[in-house]
């Protein structure tokens, strides 16, 4: 993996002339986790998709720059709420999908290591339909890591999971994605409080920066400062979305 750059998105977006989000500046610090928190429809997923150069249906007026001045879109790995596992392929083949789609040779050693680190060894030959929701999301995480990109874009990655599995996935992801520039789009204040080195709350009016707890990521679910931060974020969300 190359050195993770910082990224700045600056601009505004509209859909058919109707403003989706007002002019804003979102900076992701190099090698850090940035959490973008917001309610439905504020355009937080659009921000992420713009960085990934994926279709958004919105007109974006602005620019996306990396601190090292090289293009962003080809250096990202993307993971969504839907695990997007191919139902006809095994766990192992799903993890190695990127190489297959680029016509490259699969890095078997790396696959082994990721199967290990994500606790998927016993499931390598299974189809996604034979796995639980948490296991599927671990496969998706392994696939994301397989890409070995410096920038990781996570779009509500754990929101379909139950609370216990979600907390475990957050720990695993925080462990595996250290030193990468990570953007997590989420509607879960608790997730932002646990994972963000920087936290932004996104509303129609723009971005509000919220200071995260001083402790290191991933923060314990039951630490007082995590809980306070979660409550502050929730209150902010409730104030701004009504």
């Amino acid at each position, binding site marked *: 993996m190359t050195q993770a750059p910082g990224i700045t998105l600056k601009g505004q977006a509209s859909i058919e002339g109707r403003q989706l989000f007002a002019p804003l500046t979102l900076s992701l610090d190099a090698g850090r986790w940035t959490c973008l928190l917001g309610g439905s429809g504020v355009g937080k997923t659009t921000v992420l998709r713009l960085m990934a*150069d994926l279709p958004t249906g919105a007109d974006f007026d602005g620019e996306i720059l990396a601190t090292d001045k090289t293009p962003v879109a080809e250096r990202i790995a*993307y993971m969504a709420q839907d695990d997007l596992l191919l139902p006809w392929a095994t766990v192992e083949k799903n993890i190695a999908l990127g190489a297959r789609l680029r016509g490259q040779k699969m890095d078997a050693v790396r696959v082994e290591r990721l199967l290990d680190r994500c606790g998927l060894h016993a499931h390598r030959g299974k189809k996604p339909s034979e796995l639980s929701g948490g296991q599927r999301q671990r496969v998706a995480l392994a696939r994301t890591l397989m890409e070995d990109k410096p920038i990781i874009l996570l779009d509500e990655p754990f929101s379909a999971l139950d609370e216990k599995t979600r907390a475990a996935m957050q720990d695993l992801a925080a462990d595996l994605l250290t030193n990468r520039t990570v953007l997590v789009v989420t509607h879960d204040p608790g997730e932002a409080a646990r994972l963000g080195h920087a936290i932004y709350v996104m509303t129609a009016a723009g971005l509000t920066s919220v200071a995260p707890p001083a402790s290191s990521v991933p923060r314990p679910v039951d630490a007082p400062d995590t809980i306070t931060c979660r409550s502050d974020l929730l209150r902010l969300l409730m104030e701004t979305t009504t």
Partner: protein
Amino acid sequence: MKLWPPIAATVFALCVWQAVVTLTGVQKFILPSPTLVAETWWLNRWLIAEHTLITLNEILIGLVIGISLGVVTALTLASSKTARTLLAPMLVFTQALPVFALAPILTLWLGYGIWSKAAMAVLITYFPVTSAFFDGLMRTPSGYLDLAKTMQASPRRVLWYIRVPAALPNLGAGVRLAAVYAPIGAVIGEWVGSSKGLGYLMLLANGRAKTDLMFAAMLTLGVLSVLLYVLMAKLTRRLGDRET
């Protein structure tokens, strides 16, 4: 699936049929009784078998060529926007023509042999296969395509590793439809001009007021179509979970 309900329903239908014939005393060249049809079928089993083989041959040739052409067309349309712009309207237009009207021309071009009938089966199976498979190829879940894009996949590889496998259940549905249509195509071809096949036998028997033989040939065709459908359903069920 439980077998006895459809069997019971069939037996019941046959009983009603037999009862209608017995009670009304209708002439046997208008409506033969099922027992007469069964008897005629048995007496003519070698004749029927001979003609069935001819028709089956036409159907299978038609299916293989029709499905192959359909798959190639769908892949071409799905991978090229130019092909879609140029070919899609033409494809729809040809479907607006009644295929049956082409049967005499096919006989003129390809003669009285099996090829004009196989061609008819090709024409009638080609479109459902093309349309179903193409539809599947164009409806790949957008999340997969997003993922592939972030992985810098080439369009050809996205087609082969994602869009085609995701569309295989649709192809399966098209192939099952084709299995039902192909016998219709072959028989229409035979009606227009032939000296062999179940369609020919039906026309011949009908012309000579051998309605019992006509029924026997028709029911044989029906059973053949059902068997073909079941076979295709079994073959295509595996398409859904193909390993790439």
